[in-house]
């Protein structure tokens, strides 16, 4: 991919005018590979999806007249004979944030063309992601065993179950898709697939962008469901 050139040859204007000209220069607006630009745009669109979900959830929670279940009680886990509030979710959040760390390292190793380290770090990220999904499945089954359903909820408002399953489910699908994506890229890194493509290792960063986004969304879901 060629470097962006200011074609006109004229001197660049100052201030806002210059900013606009800089942006509208020929060939490329952003000096990044296409895949990366496209991922950013996709994530922007995906942000709107999650925002709509969360706004819908907030609105449903405000509108309902039935009591909302207390998160420290419904999400508590029995440990050593005591119910510990938010235990599982703390572990899950910790795991997901750790996976962001391993992902960042993988991106770094990718740029150094250290195939082995990149592969193992991405693999670790994927494993952490998969265990997050596993724990989420555990939490779902616990709630379901207690009688929470999308359409009803023994602890209060029915909307609790509906929005919880819908939003964490949608996020869990994102994580699962991300795990598959990471694994595909990881194995391709290992096989030297990206040596054939110039800047091929940028794909690691692009996958990383997606992964960090999914983590970031989780922080919001966590705050809105477990802390509110």
């Amino acid at each position, binding site marked *: 991919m060629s470097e962006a050139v200011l074609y006109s040859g004229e001197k660049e204007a100052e201030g806002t005018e210059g900013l606009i000209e800089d942006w509208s220069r020929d060939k490329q607006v952003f000096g990044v590979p296409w895949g990366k630009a496209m991922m950013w*745009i996709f994530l*922007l669109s995906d942000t709107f999806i999650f925002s709509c979900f969360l706004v819908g959830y907030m609105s449903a929670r405000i509108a309902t007249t039935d009591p909302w279940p207390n998160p420290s009680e419904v999400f508590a886990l029995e440990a050593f004979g005591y119910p510990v509030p938010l235990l599982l979710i703390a572990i899950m959040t910790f795991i997901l944030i750790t996976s962001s760390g391993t992902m960042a390292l993988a991106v770094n190793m990718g740029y150094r063309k250290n195939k082995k380290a990149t592969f193992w770090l991405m693999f670790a990220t994927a494993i952490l992601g998969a265990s997050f999904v596993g724990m989420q499945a555990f939490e779902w089954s616990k709630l379901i065993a207690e009688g929470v359903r999308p359409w009803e909820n023994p602890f209060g408002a029915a909307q609790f179950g509906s929005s919880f399953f819908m939003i964490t489910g949608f996020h869990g699908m994102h994580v699962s898709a991300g795990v598959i994506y990471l694994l595909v890229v990881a194995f391709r890194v290992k096989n030297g697939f990206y040596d054939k493509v110039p800047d091929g290792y940028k794909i690691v960063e692009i996958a990383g962008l997606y992964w960090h986004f999914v983590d970031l969304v989780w922080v919001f879901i966590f705050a809105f469901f477990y802390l509110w």
Partner: protein
Amino acid sequence: MSYVAFADRDHEQDHHDPDTFITKYVWSQDHKVIAIQYGITAILVGLIALGLSVLMRLQLGFPNEYSFINPENYYQFVTMHGMIMVIYLLTALFLGGFGNYLIPLMCGSRDMVFPYLNMLSYWTYLLSVIILIASFFVEGGSTGAGWTLYPPQAISPGTPGVDLGIILMLVSLAVFIVAFTMGGLNYITTVLQARCKGMTLMRMPLSVWGIFIATVLGLLAFPALLVSAIMMLFDKTLMTSFFMPAVSSMGVDPGYTGGSPILFQHLFWFFGHPEVYIVALPAFGIVSDLLSTHARKNIFGYRMMVWAIIVIGGLSFIVWAHHMYVSGMNPYFGFFFATTTLIIAVPTAIKVYNWVLTLWQGNIHLRVPMLFSIGFIFTFIHGGLTGLFLGNVTIDLPLSDTYFVVAHFHMVMGVSPVLVVFGAIYHWWPKITGKMYNETLGKWHFWMTFLGTYAIYLPMHYLGFAGVPRRYFAMGNTDFLPDSAQDLNAAITISAVFVAATQLLFFINMIWSLKSGPKSDPNPWDATTLEWQTPDHPPKHGNWGHELPEVHRWAYDYSVPGYEDDFIPQNVAADKAPVGEGH
């Protein structure tokens, strides 16, 4: 050999051109073929929607005549007509069709940045269309909820198609959004990152600007529709209560509690209003190029036109609740949304003035695309003015849900974009097919469509003032309506049938042109934009033959003084011809 993505290859390298019929025309990754696939599919479903509108008009014009249309059918017709026209025809045709065809050609790239994704986008769109069509044939038929699909009635017994119809509708919408996202990401990335040398953003033709901003709107607005579709699907199938309040439906309690129907309306219109501009902005852009080309004059105020498109796009996200003045929301909201709505009129009016000023003292060639473009200015001003009325809360309250609204939105987002679609097809037909069509037949098509649509929609304003409600199967004996209202309805129906029949002229013309039309010039309109400067005519896979073009000027160097021709293509070097006003 290092790998360079196809869209960015400076020189043609030995790539494998698709050679079998299947890779060339079916599983094609060529943006031009995908554009044609999108276009044909959209027009075919559009014909279904047109047929439905004729059926509705027959019922309204001559109630009691047609025993095969019962009230349930009527609701299904209204719903499917509206939904198909707005989403499956116009959105798909402008972005999937014209967007795909024009963006790489006008920006001077070889293809979209990710051709494979582009191909997937079309096939996913086709899937959504198939699901949509399937809903006509399931038990209970398609949904009759109105294209706005408002709950509670959309999923409550008593509404036609409440079983499978509404489910298929929602699934089809979700699939459409996936298809649109795949295409849209491509369009945006191509415009931002893969233009040819010298093609700065401020040299892009306005068609590309309109399509580009419309795609941005789509990527930010469709999420709201996707989310509301998912939530409604759950309300329907899993008995969740996102949108469904505790209702008793036909004497039974279906078991919903505490949901908010207003939430749906907010989500729907957060999508729905930008959707209007998803359809309108590409039309704005294309019509600007057509007017400038056929008036042999540069577009008046190019920079202002670009900024107007951007500002309209931005504002379109903060006006949605002007569709909800009668929903019972807080009156202060109404004040806020009325204000923002009226502010949008400013950039819109700037555009209209600039179109008119582009024509002013131009060397106007009244060819078919030009006729349709001028027709657009009329219908758009007309629909825009009634929009100012409806944007004010106090005026909207009595007019809401009457035929005044039907007349307004048909003028502004039905007729106007469709006129541009026709103009654009007539304009680019020679490039797409390499053939000319019959000019006289095209002119007949224009005049009959243009005058015919006025005969349909002008009287509807009057019906609206008189109080005829929208979405009614029949009026029966109503005291407040004079008998003449029914005569007017009959007249409207006759015009509607006439306009629908007139479209045959278009299809006859195009089929004739394909079979035995004369060969067209590579640049029959003497246009400046890049798509007319391709080495092959019509352009082949890869668009530019051996070398990518290089751009030296804006897209509107028409009638530049001191040059022999009255147009200078964008790829003519600055030392070969004078540079006009733009840069």
